[in-house]
């Protein structure tokens, strides 16, 4: 049988094998994994170069007469941030807010994940998953827009309150509104990080605790919580960093009066046009974020965030 009688697919594959064998002799095999991650490394490199750029900008102050960044390096921007009470109050508002959002999200995400993982009904599980993914996939702006309709002065809630004779209240553009929006935004993240950790806990553990006389609350505190720790750490970390650095919810639901750090950074770049100051704030935020991640990682390990091979 002549070679031409082979199906085209075989010949394409043979050609590919020959090309790969020529380009990639067997003794290069040890380098293969590095070549495979190289594109990802290069892509993330963009981010690193960007951070270096931020670092460079942050060390130049704005020359008030020419409105150009200075061509010498100075720590002036950082000095101004640390002495200006405004930035401290914004930092404090963001930190406090993200801590509140994290705890509330975890408290509510836990029973949701638990029910989703443990329910014997496939239908209920699917319903809970869809109810979770739909808002997750809709994006922050649309969701915030929904809250504007619900909480606005002529919004759904105020209309309903009006029916029972309660005067309309200003429910938007305050701190609780921002936190509420953030919790709604974060719950899907928290549930998706928690659920795999709960799946990993065998149901027999709970039955065992039960048969040894623990009621469900004690089982929860002494069995479920400790075993779900990796998931809680992962979920808490994701929620904490995402809400600490969020832009859209404070911007839309806070109406400019409840700025988080990201909003302050944006304003420095696009309102005040003080690039150096904005860059300095950005670098501080990156620092605070990495510090939080670092502390949690060293205290609890990478939890469910680890990529790649399991530790043997």
């Amino acid at each position, binding site marked *: 049988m002549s070679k031409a009688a082979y199906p085209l697919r075989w010949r394409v*594959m043979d050609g*590919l*094998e020959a090309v*790969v064998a020529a380009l990639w002799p067997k003794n290069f095999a040890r380098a*293969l*994994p590095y070549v*495979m*991650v190289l594109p990802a490394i290069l892509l*993330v490199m*963009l*981010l690193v170069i*960007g951070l270096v750029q*931020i670092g460079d900008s942050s060390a130049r102050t704005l020359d008030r007469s020419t409105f150009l960044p200075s061509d010498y390096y100075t720590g002036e921007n950082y000095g101004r941030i640390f002495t200006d009470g405004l930035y401290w109050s914004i930092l404090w508002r963001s930190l406090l807010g993200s801590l509140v959002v994290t705890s509330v999200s975890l*408290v*509510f*995400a836990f*029973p*949701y994940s638990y*029910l989703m993982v443990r329910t014997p009904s496939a239908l209920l599980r699917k319903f809970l*998953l869809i*109810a979770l993914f*739909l*808002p*997750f*996939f*809709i*994006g922050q*702006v*649309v*969701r915030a*827009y*929904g809250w*504007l*309709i*619900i909480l606005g002065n002529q919004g*759904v809630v105020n*209309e309903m309150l009006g029916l029972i004779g309660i005067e309309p209240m200003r429910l938007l553009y305050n701190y609780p509104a921002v936190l509420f929006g953030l919790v*709604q935004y974060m*719950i899907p993240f928290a549930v998706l990080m928690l*659920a795999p*950790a709960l799946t990993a806990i065998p*149901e027999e553990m709970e039955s065992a605790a*039960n048969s040894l006389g623990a*009621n469900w609350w004690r089982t929860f505190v002494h069995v479920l919580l400790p075993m779900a720790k990796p998931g809680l750490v992962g979920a808490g970390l994701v929620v904490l960093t995402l809400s600490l*650095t969020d*832009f859209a919810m404070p911007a*839309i639901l806070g109406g400019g009066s409840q700025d988080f750090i990201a909003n302050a*950074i*944006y304003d420095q*770049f696009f309102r005040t046009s003080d690039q150096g100051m*904005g*860059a300095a704030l*950005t670098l501080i*935020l*990156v620092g605070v*974020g990495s510090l939080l991640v670092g502390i949690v990682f060293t205290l609890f390990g*990478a939890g469910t965030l680890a*990529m*790649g091979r*399991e530790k043997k």
Partner: protein
Amino acid sequence: MIQPLSKSIVIWTMVIAVLVVLSAPTIVVLGASFTSGNIIKFPPDGFSLQWYAKIAMAADLRNAFLRSLAVASICTLIAIPVGTLAGIALSKYAMKFEKTLQIYLLLPFTVPLIGSGIGLMLLFGQWGIIGQIWPIGIACCVINLPFMIWAVTASASSLDPDLELAAANCGAPPVAIFFHVTLPAVLPGVISGSLLMFILALNEFLVSLLLTDARTVTLPVQIYNSIRSIITPDLAAISVVFIVCAALVIALLDKLVGLDIFLKSK
């Protein structure tokens, strides 16, 4: 196992609260988009499709949506090969500096979005490529890359390395092994990862806000700019586009890989 009543009550109360809070904005936006009045009221004034007719005529909204689609497609097309190769390499091979590499590849996740956005804005500004669509696609790919890698590693770790050895033993050369054994095994991860990348890029707001100018606004940025001026029902109608896209992606995910994949423990 029979659950005690108090436990069921506590769980269900909290779950229902979460369900209400999660779905309220979606339901309200859907309802508002069908109003026949000129302002958003709830319950709506009456049923009409006038706002849909209006957005169908609005060229700026349509173009913004097309740009968002382009951004999401570019992001996904880059993420698929890059994330798949990296995911397979990370889960299959022992590498030097593995820990460092992991921390490095987690950077898009640990660096706050505003930081990534500003950094890329400065970088792209210097390269003079701001005002084009494809840099936004690349930016969305960079910031969401960990999702793709996680998805692939999650399914690659269930791939038995003996299978590849068995294929080699039967005489399959490396490329054939990759396409016939390795790739099919990680395919669920690739599919769920790329759907995630697509929908996240379609919705990406902050990084788009920083990287777009008046000629390249994407739909989320367009909506954001409009809600700051006045809330009209046409915005609700255009938001329904996102709800439909989200529903489509969920249906695809469920059909192709099953939503349960997100509940699996690693």
